Structure formats: C-alpha cells, structure tokens
C-alpha cells in the first residue's frame, strides 16, 4: 500500500492534497469539515489588513459544457471579508485541534514594509505551518495595488518575499499569477527573495459569458460585470504547462512547487506531480462537489501508485520532466498513424468530417448512405490525432506507431534547417 504522507518545504502532511486559499477555507467551520473529510491541509483564505474588504453580491460566473457540466467558472470575490482577529483566533484554535493537519495562511497587505512587518508576527503566533503570499488575485485587489499587481512585477515579488523571510520564521510560499507572459520570471524573483516554494497557478483573467438580454457580463452586479479569476478543469492544461516551465528551467528547477489549477481528480494530481509539483492544492472541484471528493483523490492516487510500484510521492515526482522538452528536440523521423477498429466503430463519421473538412483528407468513406464505413488512408495520415480526439467511442480509433527505420532526427539537426547544428 502506497504511502501518501509527504513533506513539503519541511511541512509534513498526511497526504498531498490541500485545499487552496478560497471560500472553502474562509473560516473554521469549513476547514474543520475539510479535515473531518480527510484533507491533508488548507491554505486559509487570504487575510489582509483591517478593515476587511466588502464583497459584492453575485460573485461567480460559469462556463458550461453542452449538458450543463461546469468546464470552468470565475469569481470576483475579494480576500476574506472578516476581521483579521477573528481569522487569527480561528486559525489558532483549529491548528490546536488538528495538529497533524497543515494550515498555511494566505496573506495580502499593501506593498509597504510596515504593513508586512505588522501582520507577520500575528500570523506566526497562531501556530500555522507557513504562509502563502497572494500575488495572484486578478480582480479587485490589483485595483488597490495588491494581488496580481504585485505578482506581475518581479521586483516587487522579490522585495516582499524578502520582507517576509526577514520578519517571520515560517516557510514562505509565493503564489504566482498566470496573467503574465513568462511565469519563470516571477518564480525566479521569488527564489531570489528567499521564498521556500512557489504555488501556481492563481486564477486567470476572464469573462465567462455575456447575458445577451441585459448586455451585462456574468457574474452581473446590478447590470454591470467585471473580469474575474477563471478556475476549474478548463485551466488545468495551462497550469500544467506553467508548472513544468518552472520545473524545467535550470534557474528555478530546484524550487519546490505546490501545483494548483483545475485539479479535479487523482489523475490530474498525479500529472502535476510528474511535472514538478510536490503537492497539490484543490479548490474548484471541492466547490462543485463538496469535500467528499478527497476520498477518491487519496484512494485513486494510492491504487495507481500500487499498480506502478511507487511507494511514495517522491517515487514519481518529476518523472515526466525529462520527457518534456522544446519543440526543436522532437524526433522528426517518428511516425504514427490512426487505425480504426471496425468492431468498435459506430459509424458516426465524426472523424471523417473532421479530417475531410479541417485536416488532411486521410479517411476513406465507403458503403451506402446510412451504412458508411470509415478507414484510414495510411499514406495520407500525418498522425495529428484529430480523428481520435473527435471520436466519441473510446478505443475505436487508436494511434499506432509506424517503424520508419530511420534514426532520431530533430529540427536542430535537420538538413532542411538553414540554422542546423552539426552533430
């Protein structure tokens, strides 16, 4: 039986699943329910200076799939709207009651040394395990010079991180915004400031929809809307890439990462860990289904580890990093083509429409109208995967490796590359 217990920047956790700083971790009531359900830790919803901000009514906007499944949603909530002392007292009590669970306190105060110097000792006194600097919140708070307004300026990140390390002995995690061109720069800045780890991604600037009757973006507040922070399953691919960028870059490769962004199940979590995360934070999936999903997260991950022979998280941590590379290193002599299994194929023709209309005309349509048969024209197929992606039937289309008999050849060394490097 695999051991899910792990250690992240010196903080021990019974499993790698923490709840991210967000409404699910806003107060003791929620956090206790999460711990009862089995979550390894929480990042307490961001504390700030008093007076606490005031939130608006109507806060989330959804991006739905065809059958109302939530692909992603956004929020325009601010940091905690409860007085600082209330939060500090609750954190102290919960940590005392749940010593084996992790509590990280998320923080966001103005970009002034005095503000940080003032709040840090109060947080440390709660007995919390660490702090996370919210440099990512993309809505509302940046208009006040905080959140992503700091996260988008690497120099600020470095400066504030340094203050935190100076005025507090707790481990410091810097939470990064994805609303930036190259996430490696703020990560490196955090490292220079002395951060123990980075966590990413925070939410993405977004407008999820527009009400076509009222002409107001959602979520609508009295007929007006604003951009909010997008999260959920839809952002997972973006987050995975950003995590891998930091893990692959020589400058930041040794920086511990807490992975965040659309993690909805154990498989997502495992993927983040293979690309560089040491643990993961979950929010949207819990907000959609409740805390009970922790059972599947733990159980699924543990069973998968058992089948693979991984005894603990470290055994597969960063395992996909060596296989994550730049385009120029990909083997141009590799070939794969699609194969349609006629026993499984249901004859919907979606692959044909996709390939014929939008790709490489590599699928042959035969048979009478109403009884069509689809087969791959091997010579035409470039192995793009589009047919496999559009196919509604699992396993009906398989991508098959073709032995070209040719050696590995990347663009770097390709004869048609005018700037090729000689081997």
């Amino acid at each position: 039986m695999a051991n899910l217990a792990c250690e992240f920047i010196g903080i021990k956790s019974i499993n790698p699943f923490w709840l991210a700083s967000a409404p699910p971790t806003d107060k003791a009531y929620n956090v206790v329910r999460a711990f009862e359900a089995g979550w390894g830790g929480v990042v307490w919803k961001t504390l700030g200076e008093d007076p606490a901000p005031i939130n608006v009514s109507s806060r989330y906007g959804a991006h739905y799939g065809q059958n109302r499944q939530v692909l992603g949603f956004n929020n325009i909530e601010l940091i905690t709207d409860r007085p600082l002392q209330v939060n500090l007292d609750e954190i102290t009590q919960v940590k005392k009651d749940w010593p084996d669970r992790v509590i990280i306190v998320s923080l966001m105060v103005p970009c002034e040394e005095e503000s940080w110097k003032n709040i840090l000792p109060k947080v440390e006194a709660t007995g919390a395990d660490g702090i996370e600097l919210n440099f990512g919140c993309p809505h509302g708070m940046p208009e006040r010079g905080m959140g992503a307004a700091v996260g988008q300026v690497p120099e600020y990140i470095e400066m504030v991180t340094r203050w935190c390390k100076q005025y507090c002995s707790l481990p410091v995690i810097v939470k990064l915004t994805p609303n930036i061109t190259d996430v490696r720069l703020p990560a490196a800045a955090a490292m220079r400031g002395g951060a123990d780890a980075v966590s990413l991604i925070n939410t993405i600037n977004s407008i999820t929809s527009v009400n076509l009757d009222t002409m107001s973006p959602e979520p609508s507040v009295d007929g007006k809307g604003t951009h909010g922070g997008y999260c959920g399953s839809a952002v997972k691919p973006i987050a995975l890439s950003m995590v891998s960028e930091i893990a692959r870059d020589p400058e930041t490769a040794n920086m511990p990462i807490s992975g965040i962004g659309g993690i909805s199940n154990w498989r997502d979590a495992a993927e983040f860990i293979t690309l560089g995360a040491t643990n993961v934070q979950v929010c949207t999936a819990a907000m959609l289904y409740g805390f009970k999903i922790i059972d599947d997260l733990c159980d699924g991950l543990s069973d998968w580890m058992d089948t693979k022979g991984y005894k603990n998280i470290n055994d597969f941590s960063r395992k996909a990093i060596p296989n994550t590379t730049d385009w120029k290193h990909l083997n141009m002599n590799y070939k794969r083509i699609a194969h349609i299994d006629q026993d499984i194929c249901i004859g919907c023709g979606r692959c044909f429409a996709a390939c014929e209309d939008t790709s490489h005309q590599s699928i042959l349509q035969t048979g009478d109208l109403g009884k069509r048969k689809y087969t791959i024209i091997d010579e035409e197929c470039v192995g793009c995967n589009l047919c496999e992606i559009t196919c509604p039937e699992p396993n009906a289309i398989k991508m098959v490796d073709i032995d070209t008999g040719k050696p590995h050849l990347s663009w770097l060394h390709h004869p048609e590359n005018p700037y090729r490097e000689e081997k």
Partner: protein
Amino acid sequence: MSFTHDIKSNRLLDVEISDNFSDIAPPLSDKQVLVASERCLFCYDAPCITACPTGIDIPLFIRKINTGNNHGAAKEILSANILGGSCARVCPTETLCEQVCVRNKHEESPVEIGRLQRYAVDHLDTTQPYPFTRAESTGKHIAIVGAGPAGLSCAHQLAREGHQVTIFEAAPKSGGLNEYGIALYKLVDDYTQKEIEFVLKIGGIDIQYEKALGRDVSLAQLREKHDAVFLGIGMGDVNALNIPGEHYPGVEDAVAYIKELRQKSELSNLPVGRRVVVIGAGMTAIDIAVQSKKLGAEDVTIVYRRDKSAMGASQHEQDLAQTNGATFICNAQPKEIIGSDTGITEMTFNKTMLDDNGKLVVTDDIISIPCDVVFKAIGQKFESSPLGNDSESKPALDQRGRIAVNDNFQTSLNDVYAGGDCINGKDLVVEAVDHGNKAALAIHQQLKKQINQGE
C-alpha cells in the same frame, strides 16, 4: 352462468378513461431535452436522415435544440416535413430513425429523436412570422383529393411554389388517418386540427369538406377544371375474414371502431366488450387491443395466424399491448365465429405451423376463445371504385390493386398524381408526407414547363 354478449358502455369511470387516454409519451422537460440532445453525436451522413422517409436533417435540428435555438430546430423539421409535429408523435421511430442511431451499437439505446422532434416543433416561436412564404402566383390550380397527410403535405408544398390548391375531402374534418385512425393517446388535445391550422396558414389552400370522389365529384371533372390532380385517398376498404359467423353483431371492423372512438366526445359512452378478440398483428391490431383495454375490456386477446417474428407491429408496439394487459396467441388461423343474430359467444381457430419448407400449414388442432367482440384488423385494401369505371380515364392499378405510380408519383394519366396509402408502400404517415412532398415537386416541374412553353 352466461357471459353472452357482454357489451356495454361505462365500464370505467370517466376519470379513469381520461387518465388511460392521456398522452402516452408526454413531452420531455427542458432538462430532459438537454440530456437527450447532448447524446446526439452530430454524425456525418447520419443514418437517421437516410432512415427518415422525409429526410429530416435530424442531427442539425438536435444541435439547434441543444444550443437553445428551438425555433431554428422547428423550422429545420417543418421545412422537410410540414407534419413533423404529428410524425414526432405517431412515427414508429423504433423501426425508422431511432433503429439506425449509432448510439445503439454499444449503448443499446438510441437518441430519443421522436421526442426531441416533438419538443422542437412544440417550441416553434409563434410570435415570429410564419416560417414559409408563397412564391408569386403561377395561375395554376391543382385539385387534391383527400386531406390526409399525403394531401396536406402536397398542398403545402404546392402553395409554397405559388400554385392555387383545392382539397376535396370526403369526411367533415381534415387530417385523414391522423384525425380518424391513429390511437387517441398518441395524438391528444386535438393536435391534428391544430397542426392543420398551421399548415393552412401558408395561404392558397381551400378545403371543400364532405366532397367524396366518385360520389360528389368525379376524377374526370377534376381533371377538366384543374391543371393537375393529386390523389391521396387512402385505402377505403378493409379485408374480410371470409369465415362463417363474420356477419353476426359483435364482429367489428377495427378501423371503423377507432374512427368512432376518435370522434367521440364522451369515451365512456362507447360500447365495449368484456372479452375481446383482435384478429391481426399490425399497428391497427395493437391500437384496437390497447384502446379496448383502456376502455375497460377485461380480456383482450390478439390472435395471429403466423408466429411472433412475422408480426407487422414493431416490438415496441407489441410491448405496449402487453404492458396494457393484452395477450398474444400466435399460430392460430380464424375458423369460425360462433354466435347468433343477437351476438357472439366464441371464436374458433385452427392452429398453424411451419412445414419443413417454411410454409404455413393449417393443422386440425382447434382452439376456442370465448368472446363478446371480435375486431378484424387484418389489413386494409384499396377501394378503386371512386376512380370511376371507364378504364380510359382511370389511372392504372398495380399488381396489389393500388394506384400505380412512377418515381415522380405520376399515375398512368399524365396530369394525375397519387401518394399515401392509395399507392404501394409501408402505409406510414411519414411516408405519405414524403409522397405528397415529392409529388408536389413533380407537379410543380410539370406545370413550370407548361408555363415556360406558354401553355
């Protein structure tokens, strides 16, 4: 104790009957539609389109429903099949579009095309302009005989092309079998008349009621006064059992009984037998059996001379009969109806079997079923007498005795077309609509040629 001739009305309370005859497949809710429409895979060259006699672009209308474009979905359906609303309710979709749905292969349950189609047509936005327009008047005038599905679709299509249409209908109402023949629980709330009202909104269609061909108007007269004639006159007659006792009271024609039922305002007033035997195994047999049960008959037995696999009614229809408490007896050929001039008491049958060559043979094994009513539902036949007796001016008939037509639904008479049940086919509403559509296009082509040639 005698059960003789136990035929009476009011076997059930009005409230029970009303419940029994409510919509058999109630409309899907918005949420159900979301789930059902999402299952459609938007197939390329979708098999369902091919399986639909009217070729409705099913994946496209379902996609439109799924995106909230219900009005567009309804227009998509109606432009291919102006009676798309009733077809959604009465089509045996399990043997048409839904039978070939690709979802059947691994999931054994097709997209609910019929019910989605009903949802779409029901959600046509009536505050919008009528979705069809008439072309400029051609000055041509077409006579249509029969305001059933074939005649109505033909009329609508011709009206769209700018022609003037007069429909001659023998009955006091239009709709044909939709009004007089389909089981009541499939077309509730006077749907047929509402649908016809929508059809006629195109304009240019005049209906003359209680004008029967061969009685009030002759084919020769119609041809003389019109530029073309379309015959959508249905079958007109039913097959007989040709066995002793068929003339006794209590032996009924299922088609006639259903017609009476469909027009009855108080169903409880209908006389219903306590023990009912239905002869036949097609849709009409199922309809009369189920409706008899719903009216309060205690025992309903459907007797068929072949085995179950040869039945005309689909499995879905057979299940419906059994769910409603009817019993099937197969391989039994009618022998005699026992009774007198006051009614009947039982019916006897010879058991049948297949011989080594697969031929049905009648055995000496006799069974008897006590009954108060026997419904004959062994198929209808085309009654050709309304066409007239003059072989010169009467359209030729095919081998089965129905009106012969070519691929354009043109009869042996150059200006006379025919479609629906009076020509050879599957005898389905949706097929009749298709005949009407295609005949209209052929008539339009013919008349256009005449116009271009200055005739």
